[in-house]
């Protein structure tokens, strides 16, 4: 039993943190090996374990980085599953993203109605993250009664994107496909679930990093903001709320560790559900408590807490919310 990260992972985390503090762009992250860390050697990377993913995304969250590492990592993983070479992605030269969700599905993975016929896809994909940055869209569609993945050129004919900013930073788009030319990649629901498990870990680790930053900001504020002649951190009502926040963040860290350690194990889905349900709950708590303890300033866009609060709330709405995962946990525990 050992709860320390390996030397390699600590070094990656440290250099990623420093790079992000300097304000890294996509090329800088790729050069640092951030994408490579998400994949195994067979896939062309140098990591791919649950703890590699956890370390990378905790730092991205800590820095509030809005670059689409998660979306591109998910897309590239699906490409690798279909036997595609992802070297260009790891090098930072290509950004594939997944378009799977559909209106009305909420968080369920199916049944989807988008269909593949005559070498083209027709249907609508909803809340597709980072679609406007993608050079390749991986679209799920029904073909001969089974879900398969197809590659679609997001700038090609029959594809229209309606983009909006996303609550967590970055963008999302509603994607309409009208006989858009598509090439079969392969894949199936089991492979998709495996990659989504890793993506869920990434969202949770990202939220954990955000929570650490929010905690530090709130503590700093409690020490410096004075009311009634004293720093507000001297008020027991706030101290005890902050103690509970700190305890729950440790619980979130443990949940992320549990999922990272079981990401490739037989009990994966139960840990995905447990981790996402817990982290969604705690992220929501931390966001609300941080806003309340800061007071009015936290309501302003100008103060740096605003995007982080939004990101914590958004984390609860990605890849299944607390209730969705709670129900899944119940089914898997029966």
């Amino acid at each position, binding site marked *: 039993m050992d709860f320390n990260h390996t030397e390699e992972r600590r070094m990656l985390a440290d250099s990623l943190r420093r790079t992000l503090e300097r304000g890294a762009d996509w090329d800088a992250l790729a050069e640092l090996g951030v994408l490579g860390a998400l994949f195994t050697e067979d896939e062309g990377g140098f990591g791919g374990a649950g703890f590699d993913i956890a370390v990378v995304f905790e730092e991205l969250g800590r820095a509030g980085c809005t670059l689409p590492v998660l979306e591109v990592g998910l897309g590239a993983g699906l490409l690798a599953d279909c036997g595609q070479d992802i070297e260009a992605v790891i090098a930072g030269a290509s950004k594939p993203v997944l378009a799977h969700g559909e209106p009305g599905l909420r968080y369920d993975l199916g049944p989807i109605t988008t269909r593949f016929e005559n070498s083209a896809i027709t249907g609508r994909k909803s809340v597709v993250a980072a679609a406007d940055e993608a050079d390749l869209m991986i679209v799920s569609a029904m073909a001969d009664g089974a879900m398969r993945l197809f590659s679609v050129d997001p700038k090609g004919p029959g594809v229209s994107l309606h983009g909006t900013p996303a609550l967590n930073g970055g963008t999302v788009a509603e994607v309409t496909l009208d006989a858009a030319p598509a090439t079969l990649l392969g894949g199936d629901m089991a492979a998709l679930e495996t990659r989504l498990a890793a993506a869920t870990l990434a969202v949770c680790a990202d939220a954990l990093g955000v929570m650490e930053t929010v905690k530090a900001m709130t503590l700093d504020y409690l020490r410096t903001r004075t009311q009634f002649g004293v720093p507000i951190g001297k008020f027991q009502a706030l101290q005890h709320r902050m*103690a509970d926040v700190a*305890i729950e963040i440790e619980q979130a860290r443990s949940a992320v560790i549990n999922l990272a350690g079981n990401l490739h194990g037989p009990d994966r889905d139960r840990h995905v559900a447990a981790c996402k349900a817990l982290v969604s709950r705690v992220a929501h708590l931390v966001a609300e408590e941080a806003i309340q303890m800061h007071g009015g300033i936290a309501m302003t866009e100008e103060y740096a807490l605003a995007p982080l609060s939004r990101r914590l709330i958004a984390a609860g709405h990605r890849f299944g919310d607390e209730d969705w995962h709670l129900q899944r946990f119940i089914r898997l525990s029966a």
Partner: protein
Amino acid sequence: MDLSYSAEDIAFRDEVRSFIAANLPKDIAQRNTAGQPLTKADFDFWHAKLNEKGWLAATWPKKFGGQEWTAVQRHIFDEECAFAHAPRIVPFGVNMLAPVLQAFGSKEQQDYYLPRILSGEDWWCQGYSEPGAGSDLASLKTRAVREGDHYIVNGQKTWTTLGQFANKIFCLVRTDPKAKQQEGISFLLIDMDTPGIEVRPIILIDGVHEVNEVWFTDVKVPVENLVGQENKGWTYAKYLLTHERTGIAGVGYATEGLAALKRIARAELHHGRPLIEDPLFAARLARIEIDLMAMSTTNMRVVAGADGGQAPGAESSMLKVKGSIIRQQINDLARRAVGPWAVPFVSEDLAGNTYHPGPDYSNRVANTYLNNRKISIYGGSNEVQRSIITKAILGL
């Protein structure tokens, strides 16, 4: 990162498991499972069995006859005992007084008292809390006045757990009323047979005689029963408190409690189906289980850190707060799960009633729920723990 036990740890766990299976009498385990109070004979029997194996005081230093178990080993042992419904090791002598004597006691005190703790000849109880000194322990008022070769002790201790079984009590007493609160306290060892001591039972909310008041009226205590130096007792008291830390999360109890709760929820019917299938109940249960899965890892992070040389300091306050809340939630849900069977009240020490008309699993569920309201109060209330977290970890 490695979330699994080492091969040595697993071998140790198997050894503990088979030892308990071979040595723990079924009737003790059954009564413990049912939440029935154990007798002094039950505890004495189990202590003696453990002592034969060298496991009663396994955390002691080797020079005092211990095994110097690692924090991970101790955690494994505690967990296996909880799973098997073994009696807990009564901590007052073995895990509380002994470390203080080993660190601060005289050679004579060590030679005399430590073997008697192991043999079971002495049953110690703890004279800390007073009616006016709960979480604010240093405000204690019991006085000890030096007269020749004796201290004369007057005052009252309370919440003295299992004091009815004890022949000895270690006490914090005020020896210098003029000094600052923490500086006028001494640590005294007192024979319960001394004239002037009276033990009065306190029946708790669950109808059980578990704790007592201990009254001292002109009790003569020989000066050689002072531990360490006069007026330095607070240092020893704090040392003692930091020594009972690794089990503070109660993960073993919680894990076993959750398993028992699931057994109840499978047996109880709701609209003709097992209660565990009811979506609202299942959601309550799942929330607790998910919290416990994380808590178990939070606990192991602290335990593993302790073996890595990081003394568990204020982190144990986090474990205590969250661990106690989870255990109380389990007890609360078990009480809900038995439905109307929570109402018939087994309360032999209160109303003399030992009869319960419901299924066996329901007999003491309400009692256990009530009894465990204590765990967020004792050992420094959860509010005191939050203040410790605030100062020591968050630096506010």
